[in-house]
């Protein structure tokens, strides 16, 4: 890995609530609330957390698919949020996204060949039909699709194959970064493993960087170099993969890991669990102090009154907790 690809600084995405024709917004859902991190070239950062923690909004805001409220993103040394529309369009070639629902993210009326060629047509209209076809066939072969299938329509493919089509479409412009938003959540276990292996291969061979958004910590472990844990729009912990899984430090990270049912009855029944009480609080009205304090088994008065900073620890990881 060499050099920083992406720097995110104090990124905020707030969605106003109750705004009428003449009335100002009454309040806001702070979906992403002050997130900073760097992503290296060739690195995969896993972003985990429960529904409503802001992980998808974060991915979309970085690509400017959702309008950020504050903060900035530096892409290869340039201010990405400051780009005008024309420059943004050019820069977007290098930043792609794949979505959770593989079938819903493909236009049912377009052939698979046309879907995969679409980004190429947009950015390289000068390419001849034959060249375009060659590039499409290359991309299809790269993701394990038979190039002969390019005249077929999305509904003729299974979920796993549709996800491969989405990956081929994201890959055809040879991007530097792909935001993967729950790319395997809708897939069966046997197919999920195929797609994880494919992403690992592409990442390794092409030096791609991935932001891998998922609620599944076992999947994230198999693909990420580093892991970021989000809770109600804030980073709780960000650490190297092996250090994180061997020794999660934040109480929320511990609870998340211990909540996963292990596919191993002996280990599963023997282990001690950090059981969280209750549900995620409403992001409309997050708790004062540490956002996790209402569900944290270690919370004290301090946690309810003062928000812990995201501070570095001995092994270089960052943790936002008063008691770590």
């Amino acid at each position, binding site marked *: 890995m060499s050099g920083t690809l992406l720097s995110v600084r104090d990124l905020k995405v707030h969605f106003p609530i109750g705004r009428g024709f003449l009335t100002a917004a009454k309040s806001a859902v702070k979906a992403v609330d002050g997130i900073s991190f760097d992503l290296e070239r060739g690195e995969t950062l896993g972003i985990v957390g429960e529904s409503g923690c802001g992980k998808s909004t974060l991915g979309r805001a970085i690509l400017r698919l959702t309008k950020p409220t504050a903060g900035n993103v530096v892409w290869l040394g340039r201010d990405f949020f400051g780009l005008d529309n024309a420059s943004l369009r050019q820069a977007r070639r290098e930043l792609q996204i794949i979505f959770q629902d593989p079938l819903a993210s493909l236009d049912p009326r377009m052939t698979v060949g046309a879907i995969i060629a679409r980004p190429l047509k947009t950015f390289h209209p000068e390419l001849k039909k034959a060249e375009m076809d060659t590039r499409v066939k290359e991309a299809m072969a790269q993701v394990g699709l038979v190039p002969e299938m390019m005249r077929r329509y999305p509904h003729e493919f*299974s979920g796993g194959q549709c996800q491969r089509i989405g990956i081929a479409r994201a890959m055809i412009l040879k991007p530097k970064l792909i935001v993967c938003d729950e790319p395997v959540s809708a897939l069966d276990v046997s197919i999920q493993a195929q797609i994880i292996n494919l992403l690992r291969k592409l990442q390794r061979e092409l030096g791609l960087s991935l932001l891998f958004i998922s609620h599944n910590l076992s999947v994230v472990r198999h693909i990420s170099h580093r892991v970021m844990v989000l809770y109600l729009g804030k980073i709780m912990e960000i650490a190297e993969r092996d250090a994180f899984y061997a020794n999660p430090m934040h109480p929320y990270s511990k609870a998340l890991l211990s909540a996963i049912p292990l*596919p191993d009855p002996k280990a*599963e029944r023997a282990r001690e669990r950090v059981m969280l009480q209750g549900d995620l609080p409403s992001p409309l009205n997050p708790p004062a102090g540490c956002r996790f304090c209402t569900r944290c088994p270690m919370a004290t008065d301090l946690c309810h009154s003062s928000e812990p900073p995201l501070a570095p620890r001995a092994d270089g990881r960052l943790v936002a907790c008063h008691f770590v």
Partner: protein
Amino acid sequence: MRQSAAPILSARALCVDFKLEQGWVRAVDSVSFDVRRGEVLGIVGESGSGKSQILMAAMGLTAANGRCSGSVTFEGEEVLNAAPERLDRIRGSSMSMIFQDPMTSLNPYMRVVDQLTEVLVAHQGKSRAEAIDIAVEMLDRVRIPDARRRISLYPHEFSGGMRQRVMIAMALLCRPALLFADEPTTALDVTVQAQILDLLNGLVRELNAAVVIVTHDLGVIARLCDRVIVLYGGRIMEEAPIEQLFGAPHHPYSQGLLAATPRLDDDTAHDLRTIPGTPRALAGQASGCPFAPRCERRMERCMAETPLLRGEHGRTAACHLVAG
């Protein structure tokens, strides 16, 4: 745990077919199993394996274009294709079901109190006041805080985890002898899933009910079940006590499924094991083992001759490679 000798539910050569555009298609193919009181049976399989259709057939809820054959007996009485009046006597009181999606299975127009008390008034002839007391007590048991006030709310006023608790409370209200659960925690976040699985485990052991739980998640099976059936293409591939299935799976499909599941403690340096191909969308009537097209150990015989389940003492597998 008290396991009685006579099974409470027995399925024998259960088949479910659906009439589609292309003709009759078999979703469940000659499935036989028993469940006893005090026992939790898991049925694991990928999408299209027919796992949910087994439960729907037993509950008499097969869709209008479907037909069931074979036999399903509940306490010795045939329930497959039974008259609605007979089923109504059993369903809700001695046999009940928890569905995957609590939002679509609760009536959005009815207050929770009316949905919960309906079953008590109808099946047990309780007065409304008595029924409300029992319902509140059950909501307390599934740990819904402030149950007496919250019981008058509508389903949309509950969070996803709370709604699933309401579903569980509803299914257990009449203290059923048999409980079906179809992916009961799939729609939930992992920390909430952990709470619900614990709750379910405690309640069914306390009621000494028989439980059939359908899921794609081997972790959920490992946490809850005593015995497991692995389903593929509508047929049983393997049946075993869970320690044996997870410790030494016999069938190549069970082996593949376990190997393809990402874990928290396996090696991340290598790719995940995969099962080539895609799950078969519909079980066909074609001869041979349904898994043969994807099986790495396929022989000529596997394509021609359907392997029968062989084995003893609750440990069986349907594979020509596994000696009975």
